[in-house]
């Protein structure tokens, strides 16, 4: 039974930060069940100026490694965030699954960023330097 996979880690919180229309949860008062690490890891290449693959489906509990393998700085922002400063503020104030990403100052060529996606949902992201939500440099992770 799937519920058996659910971690005992239960976050009871009022989540006020949206991750877009397809986000795991948005503006809800709920209990978020997180899934423990499943030992799986995938790598997404961050090139100039694309995420490869730009769309990917993973199981909850999978670790995703973003590697900046281009020659330029990039960032990874949830679609609801407009810039690095917004991301920094989000990360400082929000512990929900919607709060993830890396600013360009921490993602120069050769850098990597790792995040454990342990809550199912659709995570849309983009690079604010080279794209916009759904245009230019953007991607989608579907976590089941």
């Amino acid at each position: 039974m799937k519920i058996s996979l659910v971690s005992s880690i239960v976050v009871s919180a009022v989540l006020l930060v949206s991750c877009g229309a397809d986000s795991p949860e948005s503006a809800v008062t709920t209990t978020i069940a997180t899934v423990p690490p499943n030992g799986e890891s995938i790598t997404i290449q961050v090139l100039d100026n694309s995420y490869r693959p730009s769309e990917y489906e993973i199981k909850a509990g999978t670790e995703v490694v973003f590697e900046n393998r281009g020659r330029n700085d990039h960032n990874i922002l949830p679609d609801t965030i407009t810039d690095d400063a917004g991301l920094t503020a989000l990360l400082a104030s929000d512990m929900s699954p919607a709060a993830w990403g890396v600013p360009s100052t921490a993602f120069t060529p050769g850098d990597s960023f790792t995040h454990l996606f342990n809550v199912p949902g659709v995570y849309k992201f983009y690079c604010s330097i080279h794209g916009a939500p759904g245009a230019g440099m953007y991607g989608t992770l579907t976590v089941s």
Partner: protein
Amino acid sequence: MKRSISALAGVVLLAVGLVSCGGDDSATTTNAPSTDVATSEAPATDAPATDAPAVEGVLNVPADYPTIQEAVDAAVEGDLILIAPGTYNEAVQVTTNNIVIRGLDRNTVILDGNFELDNGIRVVGANGVALENMTAMNYTKNGFFWTGVTGYRGDYLTAWRNGDYGVYVFDSVGGVLDHSYGAGSPDAGVYVGECYPCDSLINHFVSEHNGLGYSGTNSGGNMIIVNSIFRRNRAGVVPNSGSYELCYPERKTTIIGNLVYDNNQPDTPAIDVAILAMGNGILSAGGVQNIIERNRVWNHNKTGIGLVPFLEEDPNDSMPEKTAWDTTCADSKKLMPVQPDGALLWDSQDTTVRGNVLEDNRRADIAVGSAGTDLWTLGNCFEGNTFTTSAPLDLEKLAPCGSPLSKDAGDWTAGDLNVITWLVDAETAPPSVDWKTATLPDMPVLESMPNAATAAAVPASATPPAIDLDAITVPDKID
């Protein structure tokens, strides 16, 4: 952890003693390339006018909308945003298809990033957007930037002292850049990359005092560069391949009828690749199936026209087989990478160098080199060029067009090009200059768009205008 290549690729911004290069860029052309450059200083910008009459479909800035961005946000397809002379401290983002954004005067409609804002105008995923007749300066990234679009057009644009590119077109197809100018960027004054087929035209562009005059990574396929001037950059015209962007290799770029000269400029901002390529006029770095014809190329410390490899130390994919070179960019994006064991050497291949006029290129007027690949296997050919020196010697005899190349055509090693030494040269080359303070020529007053106040708004077509390439002759020398 940073990879070694990334350390090498880091843009080094060092303030150094600046060498004035003067403002002698007045140029009168007697042939196709238009220099667009006059010697007088730009008139002082007026405060934005506020008295433009209201016309349906025309959004006046600042009369109707105080900022360009507000006008853009209010615009619908087919609208014209008309900008009065003035200085606008904005970073404009465009996401609406088929609008035209036009300045009333190229030289006095100035978008100024004040060294803080990122892009003058960025068009993201909006098709058919035309930008006309204005200047963008002092942006930390790019003056004008299209990405992910079908159909784009930039006419009478001036990009001046921007921190990455002057005019930057990425992952976009079906476009024209005409009568435009880029100066003072560490990467390229004008760039078109990651597109195949690009179906794009660069015409009457002047690019100077940049790291690279033109750069086109993994672009090509009806990618045409004509009637333009690339001068006083670190390196002139540099189409190139590499797996740090998608849609490799660079291929089928046509470079005809351009003036390319004095690309040894030591006091420009410059990314590492520009420093590595310094002193070359037209340099195909791992490009394939390019056509380089009827250009006039002179005064370079290395090669006038060089076909050389690009060494990618830490690639992100294996090199596509030759049979896959015609794969469209859209299709190649669907392919998953296969990580190679080691470095990739992108050789320049199957390129035609014909009918160019070259002089005073100190290493060689025309050259082909590799780093271990037999040159006669690369398929590059040279014919009908006016030149004095070549590497290897007798290159037109060794590699004629129209017949298979042969190891036995002559001595391929006599006077051959040792590109490995360029890596050493790069270590001692003048370092990059801070783009914010680099010495530039006086900002030129450039030709404005005719009838900017009254011309109809024509969104960009995804089909660039046809160019009669056969009619283009070698342009006359200027300066």
